[in-house]
């Protein structure tokens, strides 16, 4: 079985102090990591091929540094990777990104295309679905289990309140993978070093049979206007000072409000 997994490099923001620079997240102090959901998708694809043969191909769309996300996937056991990298792709909305992917995927002979349910940075949750549309393929979202067999894949989809639905799709098909479908393996530094020499296919806009105006911001119907950091909540009171002073203030407030007997 030949499986394609679409992956994305995203900034890790959970514990970081975020800043906005010209309407976008300031990436200066942020580390880029593989999009969590895509990581599950890569693991699932690798497991399928480990169990029953075949190969896993990775694809990402992004800047030069985003090649890391492909190396990581190769270290997990993927067999090949393509990097869609061109200034012309910048500013694309999800529909346009899906169109670019579709152009790159065509003729690849994939039986199954996987990607994460959504991306951690933009959370559109639409690339998988739009890509299926572009390619005219059946799709299933929110997969928490995959059982591929000849000509078919049975997908268990996660629904609300612990219910799930099993759907069967003829192959080829596009499936978006929910977190928790598996436990992705650890990728060691040695593992990454071992795949350092593997060549990654570079794909530019010219390599795709797409009109120039079908790419980038020009082709996009949706444009990002602004990014807003969460406002400081009204209920929160920030205490200033050293540890001792902060503790004293906190204790005083508690005492005052009757929190301390």
């Amino acid at each position, binding site marked *: 079985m030949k499986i394609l997994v679409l992956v994305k490099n995203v900034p890790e923001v959970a514990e970081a102090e975020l800043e906005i620079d010209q309407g976008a997240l300031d990436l200066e102090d942020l580390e880029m990591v593989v999009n969590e959901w895509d990581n599950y998708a890569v693991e699932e694809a690798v497991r399928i091929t480990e169990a029953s043969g075949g190969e896993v191909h990775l694809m990402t769309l992004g800047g030069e540094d985003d090649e890391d996300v492909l190396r990581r996937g190769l270290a997990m056991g993927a067999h090949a990777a393509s990097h869609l990298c061109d200034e012309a792709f910048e500013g694309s909305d999800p529909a346009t990104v899906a169109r670019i992917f579709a152009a790159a995927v065509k003729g690849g002979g994939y039986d199954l295309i996987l990607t994460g349910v959504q991306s951690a940075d933009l959370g559109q949750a639409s690339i998988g679905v739009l890509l299926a549309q572009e390619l005219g393929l059946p799709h299933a979202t929110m997969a928490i289990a995959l059982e591929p067999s000849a000509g078919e894949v049975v997908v268990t989809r996660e629904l609300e309140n612990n219910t799930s639905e099993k759907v069967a799709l003829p192959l080829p098909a596009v499936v978006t993978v929910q977190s928790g479908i598996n*436990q992705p393996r650890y990728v*060691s*530094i040695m593992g990454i070093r071992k795949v350092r020499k593997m060549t990654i296919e570079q794909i530019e806009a010219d390599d795709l049979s797409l009109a120039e105006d079908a790419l980038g911001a020009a082709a996009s119907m949706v444009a990002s206007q602004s990014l807003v950091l969460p406002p400081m909540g009204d209920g929160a009171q920030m205490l200033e000072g050293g540890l*001792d002073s902060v503790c004293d203030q906190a204790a005083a407030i508690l005492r005052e409000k009757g929190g301390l007997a």
Partner: protein
Amino acid sequence: MNPLRMPFWGVEWAWLFYLLATLALAVLALGLWEKIALWAQGRRAAPVASHSHPLGAVLADVFLGRRIWQGGRTAGLMHLMLLWGFLGLFVGTCAVAVDHYLISFLQGRVYLWFSAGLEACGLLLVLGLMLALARRWLLPVPRLERRPDDTLLPLWLLAVACGGFMVEAARLAATRPPWEAWSFVGYGLSGLFPSAVAAREAFPWLWWSHALISLGFIAWLPWSKLAHAIAAPASLYLQGQPLAVLAVAAEEGDLAALGLRHLLHLDACTRCGRCVEVCPAAQAGEPFSPRDLLRRARRQARLKYSPLYRLPWLRGRRQALLERDRAADWEAAWYCTTCRACLEVCPVQAAPIEMIRKLRAGLVEQGSAVPPQLMDTMEKLFRYGNPWVAKKGAKAGWAQGREIPDLNKKGAEADWLYFVGCTTAIDTRAQGIARALSDVFIHCGVSFGTLGKKEPCCGDIARRLGEQGLMEEQIEATQALLNKQGLTRIICTSPHCFDTIKKVHPLFSEEGLPLQVLHYSQMLHRLWQQGRLIFDHPLPIKVTYHDPCFLARHNRLVDEPRDLLRAMPGLELVEMADHGLNSLCCGGGGGRMWHEIPGQANLAVRRLEQAASTGAELVVTACPLCLIMLEDARKTGGFEDKFAIIDLSELAARALGLAATDREAAVNP
């Protein structure tokens, strides 16, 4: 009549004996060949360095059983009796063979003394064996197992020895040679035979049964745990091999791919259980035992590399066993705190601490059996250079309000680099150490600086978790930074950073400047000796000192911290049951600080129970990990009104009257 030996006296069918003996020797040879084949495989996997332990010490350990005595007198006595009894009989048997087949020399007085000597050895062996059996069955020593072969082996050997005495007794009773009293045991037993005729009739039966039992024993030797007779001396000889930069092959996460030294360890282990007795994880009732790990490793090495298991009809079984062991090892790999207590007591230096690291390295490379929390820790280490927060530049916060030179800056100079370390720099409780220590240094006029926000991780956690590639990367990055800034004199807060920078970093910096690395307790000790650190604020308080494993056992630093404590006026130092080199681990090492394991116990609570029984009002330690573990256990284990936990540096600051440390509150709960 000249006293002399009578070979095959009254025994017919000597040819049958020779046939059986050949068979027994063939089985013995097969066993030895299997071991040698395994060892050769290990040598190819990881050859041993030419460096080895001083021969004199090894011989003393082997022939006097020094390390066995250290763990208990009965055990020492038992082993000495068995060793010398067995050895004497072995040499005696060889002498008999020489006498019989080569040059005859066992006659006259020589023969008489020889006989008496053998009698003594036999007696020693019998007594030793009885003691061995008694230790398992009558005065059970809890650490000893009672597996079938633990009983069968001594019983068998007892049968060999007693059978030998009976054969001799029958011969003496039948012939009554004038020199019979020299064979004093046999002579004593010869009275059991009512007449010379009866003895004569019993003789062939006794002889043959003795012969069969003995030959069986010979055949069994290399397959039994008596193989330690060869492996243990070798293991002792190869102890303390220099650390080497290990090439990490993907080791499939199992213990089979071990080098020669480790394979010898596996055969050297006699399952005495001393490691289990001191292992903090095993003691606390966690489903882990260093001894079991070794046993499985031994079985795996055999299954994978023994030529015998390549035989077609053993293959199926081999696979099944391998799978089973592998699953058990995957679970066991993460309990060890790398505290080194096992190695400290192991009589043959075989305890598995290093093997566990190899096991982890294999699991990390293979990837899918790494616990998610540790994955997260390693990813943080990789991306953010610390195991705590997914945020860059988190390491300078502790120094707010203090003027400490940043040695990254051009022109900044200091005699010492204070290497704060991830935990001390980031954890709110441990930050108190950094603040106290820098205050003490400033007070004593030490010229020092830090690397501030840019301080890298030294690679210790990656090392302990088996993330070899990450460790290398971190060490190389650290070394590059130190070289660039020309920093060679380093003081570490954490005994863990200290251990890794001191022992492992030099392996990675061939052209680098020679490092001088101190733990802060050593630095304070120096200052105290030079009279630059004078504790002038009385602390009328009773304290006990918890030795961090990486100071005490790994680096033999037990006196320095105690000297400092004793130098503090008014302070009374009392010791816990386990202290110094026998310290009991707090449970924070080996990556366990960042990992909750199913079935885990709170190791630090056990430590604090010991502290509580000393009546101390303050538990002092000298490691950020110990500090955090003990502090947590103080709260969760209900010790809050008993004592406080404090770091040596913080106590030193108090004894200098440097109250500025904002953690002073911790001293007065």
